[in-house]
């Protein structure tokens, strides 16, 4: 018989936990859900748009009644649990239902705090928490005129905005002199107040409510200074209180909330708790994003996988008042020693402030232009060193939305048919629709359902912005520690470190040691593990062909029709008449339908049948060619210009140096593709400053540049240092390349890697530390002994023949 899981609280945190659990293990439990409200699970954070008549209740339902039925979940809605009998492991509901549990999940949420003042129990006084409250408010708006909202925080202002939209005369009463003091500093709060006032909202600041007046129903509010204002409706939005009554009655340890550990377990190990009712590491959360992280952990433990750990959340806030852009995250009030970056444009009502400590963002407040809020929040969560782009950071992530989306960066203003993901042809409307109809909250969800941002990833920022603007604060930002894939909880860094420290030398050893959840991984983690093992244990680890993406397994680029392309290496772009003749002969012999000169100074032959590859490679190999690795996460090309042998401006032998660099590095496997270039003078005809490692020759030596990219996001290299001899160029190139090979995440180009670890860090280990540089260079050259074996020649001689030969059947 299955075990029984009972969920108390039919809200977002509880249901999210069930969804995560069903994904991990759909058959473990018989699940019963109790909820006090007579609705299936709905998106509570969207109540404000419902109140503002921008959405309907149906729009915000997350799990329909059919969903419960399809997943065999018994739902008792409109029936609250009144008692937990821990001795007999059962819950008892208001209506008298008794249900046994093996595991109990408490997600009782929170209640609005009602200030205990005289008259607080009169008709027309309420909190803003659920659908019933919204109905009451909408009803009042039809029959009455004056509304008072007590509390100038996020929820209070959203309630006030909604009531105003429904025609009421609204006054917001706030105890302090700035609105939203938990999210905004004074200048931003003042801008907010001015723009709300302009819309017709009234404010009473620094006002303490003393009494609510009226007979049955409220008719006025009196303040401690004796002043009174008329009121037919009073909404109290001064805060929430974790709903712990049920847990407390059952003797479960509570403080302000139900106290849980990092696995979301209460003091009773059979009982878990998630959501606004819990207190974790002394923090109670009132926003949705942390609840989802908790849900993921709780589900993991309910599924008995036992590897998730909740370590607290950094939260960000957006106000859901249409037409007002406001964003806040982290520690937005500076402390002594912090630095503040500020941008103000009063005539445009724009205010941006970043609090910086040790070159890292600690907090952000934005008003008017919140376009880059998600970017700042990401930099904050990941603790990115911003020193290299500090001078422009307030201008925003100007490279957001480069290739493929023109200059359309203002997500909120985009029309529904604006294309967001140029790779997969996904429009804004498709994404918004998927988010709303399928109840999506994370980037991964959106990727899975729409394919947006799942190819090149350049639109990730745009998609995150759409998520943020569509679901408001419920948007669950990707956790700063990203697991490699769904097969593991471990990040790339943890995997790299474990392979190194625990001498894991096979895929199986790595998966066993790191407790992989799947027996043989997936198409995401297998190539990554294969690369990490290969890079760390050259000569010891045997490359696993079946863990290579097809291009690297077949040593050619698969094309859309299933044929392959072939690009022989031309060191430094140099070529001889005999080599060109050999290529021409090969093209004739194998009926190559199209040839093209590539951007990397070599020749691409398209339309090759897979069966023909080994024979073609044999001819190329006989003519002296080796693989160009144009298909691999590997060293691609070294682009060169003519240099001083021919060019009247040339300062050094750029072509010759290019050949030497390519000789040194060819065959090397990398986290991602890797390109070199050498320009013979600062005119830079070889475009060395958009390469992973670029050399610009000058009269007195060689400038070395790193971390450039000419692709999705154009990034100009950072200047590493200047050296005097070709030998030094080779040493620095080998050392930088090896450092990237050892430390970058699989599929991370040098550009984001350099930004992540910072140029200063790279300089410290390569330029300043000579011993380390030489060791890196030696390690690189050692690894090259095993990788400079031409894969084409091997296959022309019969290796891996099965890969290239179809099976024949008689008839």
């Amino acid at each position, binding site marked *: 018989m299955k075990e029984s899981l009972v969920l108390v609280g039919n809200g977002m945190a509880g249901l999210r936990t069930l969804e995560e659990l069903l994904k991990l293990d759909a058959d473990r439990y018989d699940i019963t859900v109790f909820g006090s409200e007579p609705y299936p699970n709905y998106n509570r954070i969207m109540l404000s748009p419902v109140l503002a008549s921008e959405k309907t209740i149906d729009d915000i339902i997350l799990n329909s009644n059919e969903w419960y039925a399809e997943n065999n979940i018994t739902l008792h809605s409109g029936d609250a649990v009144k008692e937990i009998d821990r001795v007999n492991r059962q819950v008892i509901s208001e209506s008298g239902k008794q249900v046994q549990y093996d595991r109990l999940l408490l997600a009782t949420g929170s209640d609005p705090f009602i200030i205990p003042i005289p008259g607080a129990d009169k008709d027309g006084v309420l909190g803003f928490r659920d659908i019933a409250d919204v109905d009451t408010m909408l009803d009042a708006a039809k029959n009455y005129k004056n509304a008072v909202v007590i509390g100038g925080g996020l929820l209070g202002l959203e309630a006030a905005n909604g009531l105003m939209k429904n025609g009421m005369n609204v006054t917001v009463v706030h105890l302090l002199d700035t609105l939203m003091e938990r999210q905004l500093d004074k200048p931003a709060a003042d801008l907010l107040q001015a723009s709300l006032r302009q819309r017709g909202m009234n404010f009473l600041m620094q006002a303490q409510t003393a009494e609510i007046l009226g007979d049955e129903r409220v008719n006025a509010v009196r303040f401690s200074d004796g002043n009174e204002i008329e009121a037919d409706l009073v909404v109290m939005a001064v805060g929430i209180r974790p709903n712990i009554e049920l847990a407390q009655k059952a003797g479960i340890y509570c403080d302000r909330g139900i106290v849980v550990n990092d696995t979301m377990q209460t003091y009773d190990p059979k009982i878990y708790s998630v959501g606004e009712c819990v207190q974790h590491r002394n923090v109670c959360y009132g926003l949705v994003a942390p609840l989802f992280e908790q849900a993921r952990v709780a589900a993991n433990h309910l599924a008995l996988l036992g590897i998730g750990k909740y370590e607290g959340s950094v939260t960000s806030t957006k106000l859901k008042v249409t037409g007002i852009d406001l964003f806040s995250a982290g520690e937005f009030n500076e402390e002594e020693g912090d630095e503040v970056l500020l941008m103000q444009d009063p005539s445009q009502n724009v205010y941006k402030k970043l609090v910086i400590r040790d070159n890292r963002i600690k907090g952000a407040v934005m008003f008017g232009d919140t376009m880059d809020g998600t970017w700042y929040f990401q930099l904050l969560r990941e603790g990115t060193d911003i020193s290299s782009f500090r001078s422009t950071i307030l201008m925003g992530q100007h490279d957001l939305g480069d290739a493929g989306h023109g200059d359309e960066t203002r997500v909120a203003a985009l029309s529904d048919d604006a294309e967001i993901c140029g790779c997969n042809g996904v429009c804004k409307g498709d994404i918004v629709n998927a988010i709303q109809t399928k109840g999506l909250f994370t980037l991964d969800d959106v990727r899975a359902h729409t394919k947006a941002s799942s190819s090149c990833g350049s639109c990730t920022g745009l998609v995150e912005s759409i998520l943020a603007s569509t679901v408001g604060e419920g948007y669950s930002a990707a956790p700063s520690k990203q697991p490699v894939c769904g097969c593991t909880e471990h990040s790339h860094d943890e995997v790299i470190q474990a392979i190194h420290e625990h001498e894991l030398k096979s895929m199986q050893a790595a998966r066993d040691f790191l407790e992989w959840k*799947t*027996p043989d991984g997936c*198409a995401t983690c297998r190539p990554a593990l294969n690369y990490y093992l290969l890079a760390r244990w050259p000569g010891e680890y045997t490359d696993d062909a*079946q863990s290579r993406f*097809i291009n690297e397994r077949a040593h050619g680029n*698969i094309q859309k029709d299933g044929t392959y392309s072939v690009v022989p290496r031309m060191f430094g772009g140099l070529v001889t008449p005999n080599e060109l003749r050999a290529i021409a002969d090969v093209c004739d012999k194998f009926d190559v339908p199209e040839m093209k000169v590539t951007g990397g100074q070599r020749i691409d032959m398209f339309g090759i049948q897979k069966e023909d590859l080994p024979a073609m490679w044999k001819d190329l190999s006989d003519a002296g060619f080796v693989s160009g690795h144009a298909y691999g996460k590997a060293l691609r090309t070294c682009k060169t210009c003519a240099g001083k042998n021919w060019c009247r401006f040339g300062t050094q032998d750029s072509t010759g140096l290019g050949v030497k660099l390519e000789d040194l590095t060819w065959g090397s496997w990398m986290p991602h593709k890797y390109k070199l270039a050498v320009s013979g003078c600062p005119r830079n005809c070889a475009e060395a400053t958009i390469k992973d490692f670029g050399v610009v020759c000058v009269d007195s030596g060689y400038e070395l540049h790193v971390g450039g990219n000419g692709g999705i996001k154009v990034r100009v290299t950072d200047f590493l240092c200047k050296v005097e001899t070709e030998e030094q160029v080779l040493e620095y190139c080998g050392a930088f390349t090896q450092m990237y090979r050892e430390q970058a995440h699989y599929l991370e180009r040098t550009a984001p890697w350099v930004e992540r670890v910072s140029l200063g860090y790279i300089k410290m280990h390569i330029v300043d530390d000579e011993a380390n540089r030489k060791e890196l260079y030696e390690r690189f050259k050692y690894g090259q002994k095993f990788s400079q074996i031409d894969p084409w020649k091997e296959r022309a001689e019969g290796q891996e023949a*099965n890969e290239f030969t*179809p*099976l024949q059947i008689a008839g």
Partner: protein
Amino acid sequence: MNNWIQVTDLKEIPKLGSRIVKTAEGDIAIFRTAHDEVFALRDACPHKQGPLSQGIVHGTSVTCPMHNWKIDLASGEALGADEGCTNTYQTKIEEGQVYIQIK
């Protein structure tokens, strides 16, 4: 009617890999899992006809090399949030020989 066709020795298909059989009705991809189960699918992804035989095999599914759709080897159906299905063929292994059933 007995229409089982012997295609290859199991050894000739790499573990977690595949081979292609060319037939009158098009290419058929034959997959071998880590546990030596064998599955056969039409070698075309339901999404944009990518050659599934060239994908990475894991568990009892294959990831298409073109756009990363994940296809269940037993049913031919797309997994996850994607929707679509490709033809499947019955397979069996007898005395180390792999057979598929073609109509």
